[in-house]
């Protein structure tokens, strides 16, 4: 445990025998394959002809390889998937910024400040996690309709700036509470304002959880389909997920090849986001050099 990755470059410490590391890696590769099998199938599905998709074969190897689906998928709808990618990207970036900012501010209040009614508000905040969205969908739709927000991105983005997703608040609360109290007290002695404590002490020490929140909020916004499905009417404003779902009509003809092809492509941006932020998550703490 002492050789946690940030310290030395990760790698075989001298005392670890070769055999040991071969075993570890074969186990990891084996599990990786299980993890990846459905994804590999997805890639293979994206290069199969439609009549070779469902016929009961479990082989990963398609009988015929065609890249047609990438073309028909990308250009098949009136608007190209490029537009959907840009829309998704814009919405996800805006939502992520809002989520991380608003949730961290709120979490700071809940974890480091005292005020009247804190427990009450905290309980209500958790309560918002519990109500299935299906039953608030229509009242919410009516609300946004009256605000003239339907058919814009606003219902998908603006609420994030008001920390409506309690998951992120609760997550950050748990991490902020773990930061040493003495830091606040020392800062207070120096006459620091609450804002400075938040900005100069809590945030810099919380890079791992901020990175985590950023990963999740980006990925979940990217993957969300119910919100966009209800609020976006114009195909030019569609997100990738709605574009994907438009390829499938379960009552009639569907373009499954295109679905798989575009699904594969839609994973690339969020995979890159994950790779980028996981570095922050892993290395973040090393750069701050937190000591007690």
């Amino acid at each position, binding site marked *: *445990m002492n050789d*946690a*990755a940030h*310290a030395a470059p990760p790698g075989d410490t001298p005392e670890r025998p070769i055999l040991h*590391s071969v075993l570890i*890696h074969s186990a*990891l590769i084996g599990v990786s394959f299980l*993890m990846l*099998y*459905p*994804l590999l199938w997805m890639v293979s599905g994206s290069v199969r002809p439609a009549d070779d998709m469902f016929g009961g074969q*479990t082989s990963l190897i398609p009988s015929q390889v065609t890249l047609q689906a990438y073309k028909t998928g990308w250009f098949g709808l009136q608007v190209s998937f490029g537009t959907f990618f840009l829309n998704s990207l814009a919405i996800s970036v805006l939502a992520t910024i809002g989520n991380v900012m608003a949730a961290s501010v*709120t979490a700071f*209040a809940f974890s480091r*400040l*005292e*005020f009247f009614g*804190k427990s009450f*508000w*905290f309980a209500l*905040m958790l309560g*918002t996690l*519990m*109500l*299935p969205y*299906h*039953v*608030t969908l*229509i*009242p919410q739709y009516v*609300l946004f309709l009256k605000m003239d927000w339907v058919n814009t991105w606003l219902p998908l983005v603006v*609420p994030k*700036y*008001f*920390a409506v997703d309690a998951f992120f608040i*609760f997550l950050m609360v*748990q*991490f902020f*509470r*773990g*930061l040493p*109290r003495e830091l606040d007290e020392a800062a*207070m002695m120096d006459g620091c*304002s*609450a804002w400075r404590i938040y900005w100069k002490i809590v945030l810099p020490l919380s890079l*791992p959880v901020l990175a985590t929140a950023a990963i999740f909020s980006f*990925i979940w916004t990217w993957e969300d389909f119910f919100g966009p499905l209800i609020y976006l009417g114009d195909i030019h404003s569609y997100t990738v997920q709605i574009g*994907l779902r438009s390829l499938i009509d*379960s009552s009639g003809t569907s373009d*499954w090849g295109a*679905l*798989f092809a575009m*699904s594969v492509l839609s994973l690339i941006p*969020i*995979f890159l986001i*994950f790779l980028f932020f*996981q570095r922050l*998550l*892993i290395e973040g*703490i090393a750069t701050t050099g937190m000591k007690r």
Partner: protein
Amino acid sequence: MVSFTAGDAVARRPAKPGRLSRFFFAGNGAGYMFLAPWLIGFLGLTLGPALASLYLSFTDYDLLQSPRFVGMDNYVRMATGDAKFAAAMKVTFIYVILSVPLKLIFALALAMAFNRGIKGLPFYRAVFYLPSLLGGSVAIAVLWRQLFAADGLVNSVLSVFGIDGPSWISNPNYSLYTLVVLSVWQFGSPMIIFLAGLRQIPQDMYEAANMDGASKARQFFRITLPLLTPVIFFNFVIQTIDAFKAFTPSFIISAGTGGPINSTLFYTLYLYQEAFGFFRMGYASALAWVLVLIIAVFTAFSFLTARYWVHYDE
């Protein structure tokens, strides 16, 4: 909520009279300033629709016509004559009880493994997170069938051993378990949160323990686990709430039917069917608020026990 307000150093400090900033800092001003965005969002965006759904739970509302007040009818029906409600409850509880611990153990074990120095670590981490990226993609339905249908991969493997497996995904005795496997397979989010928690544990504590000659096992139980409890608590509460509200897996894999024979009829899927399939939004709202009650009781209980096993630095 319980156990929450204790031990804030800031609050215990008496405010110096006459110093306005001190007053604000120790008093309510700063708290509410920081709470403001959430409070606006809550009062302006979340509360209204939630209260509206609470009201609708006392009505007969078919979406297309105006709601009609019916008092407690919906709740009475749920308590007395709804076999599907009971079926959905059972499915949901089994799902919660199985999927949450399995997923968390899996996530924690891999987060621990990934917190050590193994060559190619970022690669494995990414690979293990990939399934979670698929989320609720339509493609999941097809992929899961490729694994668990009569002629899927699992049965191909079993046939090597001479076992002729059933069609797991569509056999009412097993179908729910394939959804549990799906949930465990997508263990990426709690894993990342655990990882973040592990990164937050100060390294010097391990260094000190090493110098004292503490064994790895002892370090795990004395340092890692206690310091990770806030994160374990978080993952536990969140995963349980999520599992109670699980919708997408069954919606996608059973194509919204909850079949075969209601074996994958998650509570929220039932609620969705009632609302949008059978035009009973009033009843669906009542179902939703009963679920809120169940989850709230569970969560309150978790917070009560948290005093005894969750360690904060305070």
